[in-house]
Every structure is written in C-alpha cells, then in structure tokens.
C-alpha cells in the first residue's frame, strides 16, 4: 500500500451536501469519499492505493479534477484497488456531481 496526500487551491463554492461516496474498492476499482471540510477554502486529497509508484499521476489526475470542478473546503479520500486514471476520474466526477447536488 502507498499513502499519498495532496493539497490544492480552492476555486469555487462549498459543496451542497456533507459527503458523497462513489465507487467500490476492488481490483481495478476504487471508492471516492468526498466531504465538506473546514480547510480554510482549500481542497485536500488523501489516497491509499494498492499500487505503488504513481504519486505523480495521482497528483495530476486530482489537479485536473479540482480544475474541472470549482470547489472549496472539500476533502477527497480515496481507497484504491489499482484503478486506471480513467476510472479514477470517472469516480471523482460521480462523487463531485453528487456532493454538489442540493436536491436531496
């Protein structure tokens, strides 16, 4: 396992909901827990992954994610079973869509 932590500038509104979860931890899959957190406007990400040595890729995938979804005061926590960046981005987008959804 490898533990990674990242920190990004916040750019948009605080999320509508307290938290949202997308995905399931499994081979080639991951779960993304996204939560409102008091981070002084910043965004943070914590990754626990079963595949070592992809820190730079995670940094970039998450940077692109936060650039795509303007958010602030958000913490993303990931348990990863070796998902490809495509699947990671998909789950991140699903989680973001849900936490931004004020309807429920």
């Amino acid at each position, binding site marked *: 396992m490898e533990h990674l932590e990242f920190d990004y500038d916040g750019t948009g509104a605080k999320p509508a909901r*307290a938290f949202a*979860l997308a995905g399931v*931890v499994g081979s080639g899959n991951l*779960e993304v827990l996204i939560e409102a957190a008091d981070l002084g406007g910043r965004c943070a990400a914590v990754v626990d992954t079963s595949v070592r040595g992809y820190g730079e890729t995670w940094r970039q995938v998450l940077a692109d994610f936060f650039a795509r979804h303007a958010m602030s005061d958000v913490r993303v926590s990931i*348990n990863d079973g070796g998902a490809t960046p495509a699947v990671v981005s998909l789950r991140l987008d699903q989680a973001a869509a849900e936490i931004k959804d004020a309807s*429920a």
Partner: protein
Amino acid sequence: MRVARHSFYEATARRRVDGLLDQNSFREFCGPAARIVSPHLPALGMPVAFDDGVVVGEGTIDGRKVLIAAQEGGFMGGAVGEVHGAKITGLLERAADVKPEAVVLLLDTGGVRLHEANAGLVAMGEIQRAALSARHAGVPVIVAIGGKNGCYGGMSIVARSCDWIIASEEGRLSISGPEVIETVEGIEEFDAQDRALVWRTMGAKHRRLIGEIDALVADDMGAFRSAILNFVGRPRPLDLDALEAEHAMLSRRLERFWDCADGRDVWARLGINDPAAVPALDADSFNGLVGALEGGRS
C-alpha cells in the same frame, strides 16, 4: 425492448438500499464518513473500504419501518470480516430493541473473509444468534439474494436461520462454492466451469423447488421490493412445533432425493414434465410452474 429494467444484480449495495427503500428515507449507521474500517487489512497490504463492505441503517419501505443491511459484493467478494460482521450483528440486536416491522438483509457474499478469518467465523455465529434473537422478539428477518457472489459459506447458514428468503434466478445459496469442491474433491465431483450445473445445484430455482427459499423474482429492483413488502410484518413461528415441522420437511427431502445425481432428477421426481426446460424459464413462468406443483400437492 427490455432495456430500462432496473437491475438488482447490477447495483452496488448502496444503490440496492436506495432502490428498495422509500426515497430519502434511509439513515445510515456508522456510515463511510465515520471511517470504521477493518483494523486487519492494512497489515496484509490490502486496501480497506470506508464501510468495510456493508451498509447498515434504517428507513421505510412503503412507509413501514425496517432496518436494512446490504453487503457490497464488489469489496472482497462481500466477505465477512470483524467490522463487517459486527455491523450486521449490531443491526440485528437493534431490531430486538426497537422492533421495526422487519430487518432486511441483502446478502451478496462468499462467506468468511479469510484475511481476518477467525474474527469472521465467530462473527457469523454472532450474526446468527442476533438474527434469532430478533425473531424471538417478533421481528421478521428477510433475506434477499441476487448479487454476483450469491450467498455462500457461513452466511448461507445465517440466511436459513431467518424468516424468509427471496432470490432472483441469478441468486445462489449454498455452503460450499463449486470451485472449492472442485479443488478439494476433483473435477469429477464438481466441474465448476459448468455453470449450468452450478445453477442446477445451488441456484435459486432449484432452491425454490426444494423449499429452501420462499420467493423467486426477476432481477428487477421493483420485483425485489414487492417481494420484500409481502413479508414485512410477517414473522414465522419459531417454536418447537416449527422446528419439528422443519425437521420433517428436511428428512423427507433426503429420503426422496438422496439418490438423485442432478437437479433435473430432483425436479423430475417433483413431477415436472420437462425438467430440462426449467433453467430457461423466466420468473413468471417458473412461478406458474411452482404454483401448479403446489396446487397439485394440496
């Protein structure tokens, strides 16, 4: 055609809970944000899940209060570890306290999580005892099986200790997985690749025909919901007479079918004219057949 069907099989544990309960009625206990994860997996270099692979909480189904647990088959095959098991046990114990109209267990599991084997096995015993305690408190416990993993290992014993079992025809209910039997006893005993054989031996249709489960439904969220609703608020007796009746039923089964080599032989002996056609029947036709058999018996 039949595209818009809302599949139970396809859904994650969370989607199953959402799909079965009244909208926005679900309140989760010890949810993912609480991060109650397995204390054992990290030492083995395995990723954890924030809910340890089971969702537990309360909500309503058609306005009737239920407690519900849903195993996530995608995480470690739905296997029961220490935390996972304790969540289900706690939920069943709560049932005895708060007396909902039912506890619903959506099981999707290979059994004990080997990575925390001893805790998982003892947890099975605890889950079973808690399920029986809930029943003694008058709360019916309803099991639904329709995920990728079926319901295997100790949880198959738990399932048969509950009041009602509902399964889709994708469902399987058995103590040993076919692969285990093949590995230990050889391919002559069980060819695990022969999936038609697997379903004829352990699948929901066979289980329905021999009286191991109470309802067979299509793989559809609405069908599961209706079947569950049918059993909400309907506890089954758990007294000595009920145990004797069960004993008589099981003994009769072994007497009648012990020499059968295949599910088809059992079905033929049950009076089904074309046993080979059973696997291809859809849920409605199959239930029609079951109805005709039971009608013929009474």
